[in-house]
């Protein structure tokens, strides 16, 4: 441990300069510290979702005579959402790869694809929610639905925020090219995006699959 953090400073206590052996986003110690900070943020976000999952699991059978998970969930719909989001995580990964290969055009292209896939995911989710509400399955109907909409909706709003954020970073890469700073930003926004993907895998399993099976 000590070696890592001391490597950040030279004999005069200054943060040492770029280490070209590392990936672009980690070369400047200032940027790599920010990446660590973001990992810790993701830990807090993971716990946030953990609490929402716990609440959902406690309340999933509390339907109060209203629609149950099995009646509600539309298998083609959530399967499509899953494929789209998983693909977007892959294209986001390709953007990171292109960033490490210093290919700005590819970064911009893959970020655009990721954003478009993200938008279609959100679109499908809004459509799903809209359909549920039309059938009378609102979040006020029962504790189960409150928990369902809150858990899935929190993920959806994270994705929406991610889209705005990714777009702002796309603009920055377009304007400034790939520097150590923009590289860190591309890396972090993709970290966030992958994290949302991981959360979705749990939502897919715990909410949707359990919901239609059990």
């Amino acid at each position, binding site marked *: 441990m000590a070696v890592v953090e001391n490597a950040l400073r030279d*004999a*005069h206590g200054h943060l040492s300069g770029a280490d070209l052996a590392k990936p672009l986003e980690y070369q400047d110690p200032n940027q790599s510290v920010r990446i660590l900070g973001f990992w810790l943020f993701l830990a*807090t976000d993971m*716990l946030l979702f953990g609490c929402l999952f716990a*609440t959902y699991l*406690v309340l999933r059978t509390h339907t109060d005579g209203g629609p149950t998970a099995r009646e509600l969930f539309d298998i083609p719909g959530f399967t499509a959402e899953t494929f789209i989001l998983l693909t977007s995580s892959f294209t986001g990964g390709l953007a990171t790869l292109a960033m490490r290969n210093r290919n700005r055009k590819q970064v911009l292209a893959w970020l655009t694809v990721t954003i478009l896939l993200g938008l279609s995911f959100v679109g499908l989710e809004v459509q799903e929610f809209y359909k549920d509400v039309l059938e009378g399955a609102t979040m006020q109907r029962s504790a189960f639905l409150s928990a369902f909409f809150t858990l899935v909706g929190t993920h959806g709003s994270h994705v929406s925020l991610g889209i705005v954020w990714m777009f702002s970073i796309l603009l920055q890469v377009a304007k400034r090219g790939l520097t150590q700073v923009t590289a860190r930003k591309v890396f972090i926004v993709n970290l966030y995006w992958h994290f949302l993907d991981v959360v979705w895998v749990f939502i897919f399993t715990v909410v949707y699959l359990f919901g239609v099976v059990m």
Partner: protein
Amino acid sequence: MPESLRQFADTYLMWQEGPMIWISDVLILLTSVGIVATLTYFKKWKWLWREWLTTVDHKKIGIMYLIAALLMMFRGGADGLLMRTQLAAPGMHFLDAEHYDQIFTTHGTIMILFMAMPFIFALFNIVVPLQIGARDVAFPYLNAISFWLFFFGALLFNISFVFGGSPDAGWTSYPPLSELGFDNGPGENFYLLALQISGIGSIATGINFLVTILKMRAPGMTLMKTPLFTWSVLSACIMIIFAFPALTVALALLMLDRIVGTHFFTILQGGNPMMFINLFWIWGHPEVYIVVVPAFGVFSEVVATFARKETFGYTSMVAALLSISVISYFVWAHHFFTMGAGADVNTFFAVATMAVGIPTGVKVFNWLFTMYRGRIRMSLPMLWTIAFVPCFVIGGATGVMLAVAPADYQYHNSYFLIAHFHQVLIGGVVFGMLAGMYYWWPKMFGFKLDERLGRWAFWFFNIGFYVCFMPQYALGFMGMQRRMYTYPADMGWGTLNFVSTIGAYLMGIGFIFIVAQVLYSIKHGERDLTGDPWDGRTLEWSLPSPVPHYNFAVIPTVTDRDMWWVLKEEGRTEELRPKKEDIQPIHMPKNSGRPFLMGVAFFVAGLGFVFNWYVLAVLGLLGVVVTLLRRSFEYDDEYYIQPEEIEHVESALGRL
């Protein structure tokens, strides 16, 4: 027009509530006018904005946290005195039941979240970078955001008193009591939003300091050479990161229940109030360790310095801190042993609760062994530390009594519990934070606080403490329950309650002495010209007081745990003085007004949600998004301090 005006005054200004609110309104108005007039008269607006509101300097942020914490201690203390006055005699009608509910709610919430939390954050900010040989925290801009979120959260909470009405469902805010159906005033919304906003700031502080401690230590300072206060901050930050998201979720879900009409915790339509209680205490129990663990860090520093000995059992101290931060997650259900979880669950949580006593005991014995055969100096920080030991031992013992699940059915929600948690939280956190404040005060401000007035404060506060809380253990056994606003004379609780109230007022006098001490010392306090007034052991004492804004002109290389002490012993202190040839330009973050503006935006959004004024809420949230985006597009946010300027400052301080 006058009719609508009157309606506004009745609804929001609570004009019908009577003289207490009127007096508060007038006082608040006068204070605000006074502040504005003073700032204008002395032409200090620009200074306020440039030096304080936009600062990203961890030392200034720490000072602002400290001021806020002391102000909140006053507010929370005034609430406490109002409660004790109401309970002084049987059948009192000084306050009515509704007001009493509001006052115990704000007392608890303020003391934990808006007094203890900023107090520990004050010390985090002031001490940690200096102790580890860093120029700043890892994320200075985020640090400023954390402060302003705390500040505006606290402001939102406090204005509820005169604008719309205070929360009244207890500091734990249990549903269904706090659901819209039973509590439809805006008070509960104030509680939920204020805690939510300041909670976001706390999570950011946890992340910030964890990264700072892991990544910013001076060369040579391995983790096992890191000072114990810094270790305690590390432990507290781990708990913050793991605990606060649960609070965020609990508050958000209750907010949804109240605003959107969901059914997480309602009795009808499948809601389950126990879910809130679990989520709340998954945060709430670690929270009490979050505030007490930094106090443990303070005691470790103070004992070593004032006994002039190396801390006994450094490694076991570190192990104890880390085990506390882990065990803190396995005890939350001891807050509701009586809610029918069953014997197996209760047994697990009872045993885990008692287990916390082990590392805590290790720490207390280590402090005692450090003092043993030390050349102890009874300065103020040491005085508070020594007072802490018996206080915490009694509090710990009654805690173990409460942890016996079957016996807890007797004590639950009684004054025995009240006495216990005040004993550990005042004896642990308040004593610890005051010790830390006295200890690092010269480092912050360049002068010592007056000893004589400080001793008066100490004795009033300490004697007052025992007079106030010891009777409450007995009252608990005699059947008096918490949150009762009055009681009949034939219960036989009158005498003990009266004694308890006297104790509370003695503590109040103690606080007044602290205020007097600060005011007196600003002018007459002993100036600290050496930078090392206590003959300290760690790196912060190698710097001048107050510390220049870049902290270290040259970052030291660390070889020992008590680096500064070893250098002094060996006559090598010159090594930590900057040499002209070593001085290089220093990279510093630029000040920014955006963290402050983001706090304002959160405040506006919070106010909007409190009163369901959604236009305001949306405007506030837009403000948050805009400040976030502006930051994302900001590149030119750092500058260099040139060597000439550093040389100039250092030679003015006589260090070059």
